[in-house]
């Protein structure tokens, strides 16, 4: 990538450093001069927003760990202690809890942006797969973090999720006990979840580094999905996109701050302010909102399929929903990347977004109500049909609209129109 760099060491010290560890050259190439398509819209600022979210979670998390006690006798009280006694703890804890929701909001927008503009298509498959890996890691991290306050939802969420593994034939029960460190969720479970909850964000950060590396090989996709042809199509990342991303971050922080200061608990569940009790299950176990779509998929399979019982079926469906995301670069083989130039795709995509909102909504509803049960199944069916039927078929039958010849032409054409 050195061809992008105009870096000339300015002083003898810089020259000396450049010959030994070219860190200034590297930063200049990748953080400042990096050629970026000039037509990126605000959907593209969510990458930077996500880096900010990860940073916020790590900083607030390290602080919370200084005051939190991972022991079933003290965990619940220590979180209350943070919220009441620790200097500024009320806000720091709220930023961490609201931050998890903000992280997922940004993640979903980032993923749906990629799905619309075909950012997963060649040559960006690895970039996309790394993104899905990050998504899965963040879900695991968030789940384990939610267990730490040791409220009723923490305990029963942990029970339900670890129970999922018992669906695996033959070794399922052993795996479940291995994960829990006991026959039921208990102190060993809380301890290891705390350890892993502290570790995983750093693994996420490492995969983010790979994700950005994989981004910087082909460069950014863009709203028209036409590859960069020459330097007239691009702008240096700094100051053009550092500024655009900074604005995105500031705007994103407005609702974030509103939640932190005015409704820090609105996204939580009242049952989690009751200490964990292994003898009583809350009437409705509801995961955090960001896991609801997958929870709907998990419980939609309430019937046996051949030799697969309903429980294993649900787990397979949930795993399959992730697998669909991983392999979407090979399911959607349409040459045209951007949904803007795909007249049929657009509609199915819009329906997919609405359907996903439906999946989220259904995750919090009572599944024993027949209408909810049926709607849930319909939403789950469309999720899979979109990936496994609609995308492959559209790739073959759809006639895309004519593409602009270059990014620069599309930008200038707009200006004249």
């Amino acid at each position: 990538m050195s061809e992008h760099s105009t870096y000339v060491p300015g002083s003898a010290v810089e020259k000396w450093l450049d010959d030994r560890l070219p860190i200034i050259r590297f930063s200049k190439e990748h953080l400042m001069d990096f050629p970026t398509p000039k037509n990126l819209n605000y959907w593209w600022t969510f990458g930077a927003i996500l880096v900010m979210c990860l940073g916020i979670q790590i900083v607030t998390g390290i602080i919370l760990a200084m005051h939190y006690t991972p022991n079933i006798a003290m965990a619940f009280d220590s979180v209350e202690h943070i919220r009441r006694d620790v200097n500024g703890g009320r806000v720091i804890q709220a930023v961490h809890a609201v931050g998890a929701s903000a992280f997922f909001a940004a993640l979903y927008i980032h993923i749906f942006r990629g799905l619309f503009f075909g950012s997963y298509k060649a040559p960006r498959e690895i970039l996309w797969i790394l993104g899905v890996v990050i998504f899965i890691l963040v879900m695991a991290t968030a789940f384990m973090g939610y267990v730490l306050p040791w409220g009723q939802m923490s305990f029963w969420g942990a029970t339900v999720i670890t129970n999922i593994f018992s669906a695996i034939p033959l070794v399922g029960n052993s795996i479940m006990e291995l994960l829990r460190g006991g026959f039921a969720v208990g102190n060993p479970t809380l301890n290891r979840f705390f350890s892993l909850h502290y570790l995983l964000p750093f693994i996420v950060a490492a995969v983010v580094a790979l994700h950005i590396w994989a981004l910087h090989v082909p460069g950014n996709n863009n709203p028209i999905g036409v590859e960069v042809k020459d330097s007239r199509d691009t702008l240096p990342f700094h100051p053009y996109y550092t500024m655009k991303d900074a604005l995105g971050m500031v705007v994103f922080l407005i609702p974030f701050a509103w939640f932190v200061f005015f409704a820090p608990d609105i996204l939580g569940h009242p049952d989690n302010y009751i200490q964990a009790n292994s003898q009583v299950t809350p009437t409705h176990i509801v995961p955090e909102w960001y896991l609801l779509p997958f929870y709907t998929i998990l419980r939609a399979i309430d019937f046996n399929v051949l030799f697969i019982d309903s429980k294993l079926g649900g787990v397979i469906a949930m795993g399959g929903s992730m697998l669909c995301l991983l392999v979407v670069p090979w399911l959607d083989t349409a040459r045209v990347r951007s949904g803007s130039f795909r007249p049929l795709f657009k509609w199915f995509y819009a329906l997919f977004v609405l359907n996903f909102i439906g999946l989220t909504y259904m995750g919090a509803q009572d599944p024993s109500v027949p209408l909810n049960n049926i709607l849930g199944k319909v939403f789950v069916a469309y999720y899979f049909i979109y990936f496994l039927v609609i995308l492959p078929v559209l790739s073959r039958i759809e006639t895309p609209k004519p593409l602009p010849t270059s990014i620069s032409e599309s930008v200038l054409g707009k200006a004249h129109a």
Partner: protein
Amino acid sequence: MATQAEHSSTNRRDFLYVATGAVAGVGAAAVVWPLINQLNPDASTLALATIEYDISAIPEGQTVTITWRGLPVFVRHRTAAEVEEAKAVPLSELKDPETDEQRTKEGHEPWLIMIANCTHLGCVPTGEAGEFDGWFCPCHGSEYDTAGRIRKGPAPKNLVVPPYEFVSDTLVRIG
């Protein structure tokens, strides 16, 4: 010998390479295993695996939830009507066929002792609820009958009967 080795497609060097790799692989696995095994239930958890419970204080029609191995366990003193109801169900109607006799101890039919976690995803069902007069799981709507057998909903199995025995008429040992 030397010429033969030079000409054959696998030579001494390949063998050493594979053998070294295999030994290193086994060594790595031997090191990793204890690091994973430490996650398994520890000695203090396993030590709590047997308990004794005096059931004499539980009147007919009442359930007591006790803890065994960290899990909630229902000890239900069933009414005669409930036992009759459970016995009257034909096996063909059951998703996980088991007779009432298989789920209780001979001579102690009113006593139903089961792990109180729904076999779907582990929630604790509510007692004396649902259309089968047994248990209803609020999480995903599984329903159990008066013998704790699954009758409806996503749970695949009957509520699990732990290993237990009657030490005397009023004392049970679970585990």
